[in-house]
């Protein structure tokens, strides 16, 4: 594989930085109403065999980030800055041919709605066999056998017959299994799962999530798991990154982010969703207001218009100064470290019941 030389200042290709490294990613769309910065200065690392959960609401930039990693954005309307390194290889400057060799082979993606994400025109078997033929050079027959084997692995009964079916003949859960089989057919190092269970029923979701975890253990795949559901992320991820309005606002391990969160937005998310055992007497504490428009985002901290702790920060720093997100365990908020800890323990934690 050819390596594209990068501008100086790029981190070492491999090493502790992780297998997937994103540095200061900026994604800007040009729209009729003006430029929209969908992702604004995002950096993260993902190690082999680990799962990074990205949590965010619509418009947080979580899906855009992942389409950009795969290079599936529309180049006509998108400007990208920063760098994305997959195993030391720079993806932003890679040619289309190079990206094609990586996609479906070393990095694959699962989408939210398996009904629209699978082509209605071809059989399930063919759609799974296709990338295998392309990337391994296998014969049609061998690729078909591989497709059947993958279908069996993800739990499709009678895989030999079902491989000849079309997506509309599968149930929702089965379709998502087929989608997983398709993504994993070339044994990729990186799997991006964009809300893969949002369209599914809860008992089927549980099956699919466990299946992904078990397959990850078997194949050693690194997973970027995108969702808006904190419960799902708690179940799936090793590390979590919380995104808001195109920026990462908090990161850490699952334990750190969900059990000792530091950012007011994360607090808000935790407080606004009921759990199966939460106290029934207390009403939910929603985050006031609505997510901002990225056409005209708030200055300083983008969360400040909705933040109930803004007055605890001296001066108008929240409005004027962008809080930075450090590496490792960090939160992008002007509150002091000790302040964050006390607020969570004294004011947030009790409301979680």
């Amino acid at each position, binding site marked *: 594989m050819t390596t594209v030389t990068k501008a100086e200042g790029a981190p070492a290709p491999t090493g502790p930085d992780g297998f997937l490294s994103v540095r200061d990613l900026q994604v800007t769309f040009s729209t009729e109403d003006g430029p929209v910065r969908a992702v604004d200065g995002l950096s993260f690392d993902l190690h082999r065999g680990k799962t990074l959960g990205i949590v965010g609401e619509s418009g947080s930039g979580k899906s855009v980030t992942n389409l950009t990693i795969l290079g599936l954005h529309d180049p006509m309307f998108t400007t990208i800055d920063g760098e994305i390194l997959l195993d030391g290889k720079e993806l932003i400057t890679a040619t289309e041919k190079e990206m094609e060799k990586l996609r479906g082979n070393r990095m694959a993606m699962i989408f939210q709605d398996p009904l629209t994400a699978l082509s209605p025109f071809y059989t399930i078997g063919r759609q799974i066999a296709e990338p295998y033929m392309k990337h391994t050079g296998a014969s049609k027959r061998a690729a078909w056998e591989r497709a059947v084997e993958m279908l069996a692995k993800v*739990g499709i*009964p009678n895989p030999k017959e079902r491989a000849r079916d079309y997506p509309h003949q599968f149930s929702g859960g089965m379709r998502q299994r087929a989608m997983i089989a398709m993504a994993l057919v070339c044994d990729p190092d990186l799997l991006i799962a964009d809300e893969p269970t949002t369209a599914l*029923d*809860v008992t089927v979701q549980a099956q699919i999530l466990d299946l992904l975890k078990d397959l990850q253990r078997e194949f050693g795949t690194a997973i970027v798991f995108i969702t808006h559901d904190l419960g799902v992320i708690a179940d799936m991820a090793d590390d979590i990154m919380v995104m808001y309005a195109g920026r990462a606002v908090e990161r850490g391990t699952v334990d750190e982010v969900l059990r000792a969160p530091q950012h007011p937005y994360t607090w808000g*998310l935790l407080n606004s969703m009921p759990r199966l055992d939460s106290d029934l007497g207390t009403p939910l504490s929603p985050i006031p207001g*609505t997510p901002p428009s990225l056409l005209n985002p708030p200055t300083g901290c983008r969360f400040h218009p909705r933040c109930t702790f803004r007055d605890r920060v001296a001066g108008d720093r929240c409005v004027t100064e962008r809080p930075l997100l450090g590496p490792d365990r960090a939160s992008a908020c002007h509150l002091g470290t000790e302040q964050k800890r006390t607020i969570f323990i004294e004011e947030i934690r009790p409301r979680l019941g």
Partner: protein
Amino acid sequence: MKEDLVLPTTREAGDDAVPEPLLKVSGLVKHFPVKGGFPIRRTVGAVQAVDGLDFQVAEGESFGLVGESGCGKSTTGRLITRLLEPTAGTITYRGQDISHANRKQLAPIRSEIQMIFQDPYASLNPRQTVGKIISGPMEINGINPEGGRERRVRELLEIVGLNPEHYNRFPHEFSGGQRQRIGVARALALEPKLIVADEPVSALDVSIQAQVVNLLQKVQRELGIAFVFIAHDLAIVRHFSQRVAVMYLGKIIEVGDRDSLYTRPRHPYTHALLSAVPEVTLTAGEAQQRERIRLAGDVPSPISPPSGCRFRTRCWKAQDKCAAEEPPLLQLSGNRGGHLTACHFPEEPTVEAREEDIVLDPALAALEEDQAD
């Protein structure tokens, strides 16, 4: 007939019999015909969307309906509001049978039973102003509140947390959460006694869901409106509804007060459903304390549901009896009053982890066995 339409407004003092429920549903059935056949197309079967429901909703109560896709919960909502006509069974609203009432007979009831829909984008007319949308039901029903309709609309906007100044705006000028508030305001316009809310928050962002849930809760408590709250999210249903019914393939398989149902479920499906909910746990290791049940496959088609107990094809306890006999919805020994379960072989009333997980999914079982070695 105008005479038929008089609804009792006050209950006789000293009437110490069990109060008449606001809504009573018994033996409710809705089948949708399936066309097919050759050479002449005819009805060849039926989607048994709802197949024999019995439940009651008291005045001011919130009754939750949960279940997965195809369980018939949305159809039930549409039957109660009489957007659909039942195939069989009766719907009694305040003592009056409305199962087959015609348009004219329904008119006075329509204002008392309102509906809130899932999709706040599709359920508001984009060409009407908010004021027009909310006052629409008043106009249709010829209601002229004191101070005029406009004043009432502004009042309603305020109740649902919107700026009354936005009276003349159009739906597209609002965010998803705000649109759902408009939907709530419209439902409240006629001072309903019962609101059927069909997945009212599932299309909204997480941070917005809580705002709408709180609003509905405020409305329910302060205005004493009864709710039939339909959702697939078990935690939200528990949060909102005092009593909850679990549906599977057109039938209620378990119903009870929320505490009893969520902590002491008896039906295997309720167990499976609760154990499937992914949860944020506040302490590490807490997740392992809950039982883990992974079913196989998806819900079968409601066109040809399994005989006997409909859950038996995915149940780990199924025996011959389950295929032969449909289990009645009964109060099992050990259940709290009003907690009914339809199962021949009920589970222990606990959701704590079992000695061995129940994993019916063959792929999961295979992978987990490999990895255990």
